[in-house]
């Protein structure tokens, strides 16, 4: 649809605020490093080196970024329908479990086995999000609480499966047997780091951005998040829209679960395979401010911090928890910049109202729509 200049300007501003939040977050983090007695300049260099220093490092960063993009998209789909899917972790886990079970127990030729296992992962994510979606639609259960609790349940289910039914009896660790190679997620070209989930994630970004801006479903989501009662009045089935968005969000998380399991270096599913991606994905979604394309730089940033943080710790002994520190700072900064910007905006609008300047003029179009 057409977008007005004022709207574009506003979007540019929110983008800038995200960048500013990141910069300030990094400054705070490095100040903390300095206070702890480590050399700031050298830390920055190692962080940078670790994330982007060589083509291998860069590839590792991108490989880490891919699941973050998908989870970030999952957050965005839900958030755009005013749903806070905090439990992406749990949906990743259940997706991973379903993919693992399918890979282990369903015999199929190469390719088919992979597709089946990926599909099973998606179904798992949808199922886990679906429980919370049903509770929301039927019983008005707050999804923040239900998804959070469902994540805890998923963690326990995973632990039980890996120490019981799915456990490799020959191992002492809680992990599965090696998955059959028919279901491995293949490497991309001749890379030995990047896998086929990269083009999948890019495709998801493109698809989601088109669906959000051009489809009836995307429009319904905008209506629901813009004013649910007006949307309801106008004939939009608002509950259905929110449930659908919730399920799509879960399917993306489930896909991530499957790709983590099927693309694992050890070719087994172990406890903690999901770790970090659910929460980091939310950070990505927040930083991207609801824009599918925005997940790419946001996920890249978070992945780079993780990747570079590893080297920084190895070389300088600076704890890699720095990454969490930075993320926390960024999330808080993004959160406060939202009400901050809207307050500035409304104050400006007030000033304009009071001065009696008309808000919009004739169709000729010389009006101020700042």
């Amino acid at each position: 649809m057409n977008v007005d200049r004022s709207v574009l300007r506003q979007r540019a501003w929110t983008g800038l605020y995200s960048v500013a939040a990141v910069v300030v977050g990094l400054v705070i983090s490095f100040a903390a490093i300095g206070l702890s007695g480590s050399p700031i300049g050298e830390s920055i260099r190692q962080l940078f080196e670790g994330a982007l220093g060589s083509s291998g490092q860069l590839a590792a960063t991108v490989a880490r970024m891919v699941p973050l993009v998908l989870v970030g998209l999952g957050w965005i789909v839900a958030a755009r329908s005013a749903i806070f899917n905090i439990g992406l972790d749990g949906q990743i886990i259940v997706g991973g479990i379903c993919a693992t079970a399918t890979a282990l127990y369903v015999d199929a030729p190469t390719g088919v086995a992979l597709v089946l296992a990926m599909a099973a992962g998606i179904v798992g994510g949808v199922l886990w999000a679906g429980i919370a979606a049903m509770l929301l639609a039927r019983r008005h259960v707050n999804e923040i609480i239900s998804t959070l609790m469902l994540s805890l349940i998923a963690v326990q289910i995973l632990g039980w499966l890996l120490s019981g039914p799915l456990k490799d009896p020959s191992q002492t660790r809680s992990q599965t047997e090696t998955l059959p190679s028919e279901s491995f997620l293949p490497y991309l070209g001749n890379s030995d780091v990047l896998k086929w989930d990269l083009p999948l994630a890019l495709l998801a970004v493109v698809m989601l951005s088109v669906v959000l801006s051009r489809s009836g479903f995307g429009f319904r989501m905008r209506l629901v998040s813009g004013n649910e009662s007006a949307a309801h009045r106008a004939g939009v089935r608002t509950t259905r829209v929110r449930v659908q968005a919730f399920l799509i969000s879960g399917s993306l998380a489930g896909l991530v679960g499957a790709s983590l399991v099927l693309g694992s270096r050890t070719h087994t599913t172990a406890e903690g395979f999901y770790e970090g991606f659910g929460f980091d994905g939310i950070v990505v979604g927040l930083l991207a401010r609801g824009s599918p394309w925005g997940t790419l730089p946001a996920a890249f940033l978070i992945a780079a911090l993780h990747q570079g943080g590893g080297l920084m710790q190895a070389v300088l002994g600076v704890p890699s928890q720095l990454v969490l520190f930075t993320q926390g700072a960024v999330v808080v900064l993004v959160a406060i910049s939202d009400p901050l910007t809207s307050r500035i905006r409304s104050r400006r609008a007030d000033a304009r109202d009071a001065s009696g300047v008309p808000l919009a003029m004739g169709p000729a179009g010389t009006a101020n729509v700042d």
Partner: protein
Amino acid sequence: MSREAEVPEPLFRLSGISKRFPGIWACRDASFEAFAGEIVGILGENGAGKSTLMNIATGLLRPDGGQIEFEGHPVTIRSPMDARRLGIGMVHQHFMLVPTMTVAENAAIGARPRRPPLSDVRRVAAHLREVSERYGFPIDPNARIEDLSVGARQRVEILRVLAQGAKLVILDEPTSVLTPQEWDDLSGILLALAAEGKGIILITHKFDELFAVADRCVVMRDGQTIGNVAMKDATKPALARMMVGRDLVLRVEPVHVDPGEPVLSVSDICLTDDTGRQLLDKINFEIREGEILGVAGVDGNGQDELVAVLSGLISATDGEIHFKGSPVPQFSPRDFVEMGAAVIPADRHGQGVVLDLSVEDNLMMSDFWTDAFSKRGWLRRAPIHDRTRRLISEFNIRTPNAAVLLRQLSGGNQQRVVLARELDRHPKLLIAAQPTRGLDVGAVEFVYERITQHKQCGGATLLISTELDEILSLADRVAVMVGGRVLQILDIHDADAERLGLLMAGGRSA
């Protein structure tokens, strides 16, 4: 009564109070006096500024301009605490009581204990008992709020205010939750309080209450205090006129259309809320093609509920609705739209538009899923753009372009967007609830034209309005709603402002 003569100095005076919210003057140069020993009513419709004025008096809001005096001294009231310290107490419409706590515990909230942090509920209880006996409405301080009736809870609120030493007691719509018997008790208490020398302010939109207890009444409209009448000189129609009717600004040429087939018929519609209160009581009417049925009544007498039931937002607890001859037992807002009906909601920002979406988005909200504008789930941009352009010019929506956010249009233009969206579908039935609320004269005229045009094209209209003139100029028949019931349906030729005003005030018939 000559209480005023005995106490010439006002207890409380607001002069020239103004308060502006974004886009609207909630109070504009409002002035008001209350005397000790006097019961003064503030009469006005919802949105007239009564509550804003009283929130200013109790420190919940700060005025943008104007002066407040208490007992002859200029004062600044920064918080409810300040108001309480001065001796201004407020009994809110929705009780501010913690249901699981006792009367005394509730009264102890906000009262400063003698030895903090220890609370002294026992001392408060004793004090409450003493105060309640003095004014002749005994209440057990150790009763739990949730065990008390609504009327008793209200007495607790009053008691709490008195125990805090209030000299001026403000009651916000105190009867909206009371039964007639409970009102009798309350009026007795109010008279007793006034006799003791307390100043009483009674915010209401019901005339009977004022005639029963008040000495004087101040009428508010559009944020301004427009009248100050001694009750002994007041008549219901005069008050109704002051409160509701602006003077005739607009008269639409009456258009007669021979009514066709019935479009909407409603029989014995009832609605009861969770607590068993009867919100709609056996509503019956029929609207035919080319006919406008007006629903007159003071705000809050069941109009919102009627609209909610008819547009599918909530289901009636009893009764039948027929649309074009066939019964529609259960329907959603979506069904309502697809039956070929449209609604202009009274709460424009809450239910009519999405402020943070564009004009175009708002124009396509209720039919973007139809084949004309969607193809296999994808929006068809060309037809949408064409229609948007056409509607902007047809409905004279003044906007720089279609991509501007709705928030940036004036109220009148926002309403034009709603009208354009709803009327372009050529609905069989239009429910227009307060369609001109808050609009300037030009926009009002436009709304009238469009509704008339809809009628000429054979559409049926249910016009719900608190503006008597609006109903008198547009409607073919008028139903008067009071307390969730339709008192009477009059032919427009038998209706005039005076007669409607009397009916609205609750008189059986005139």
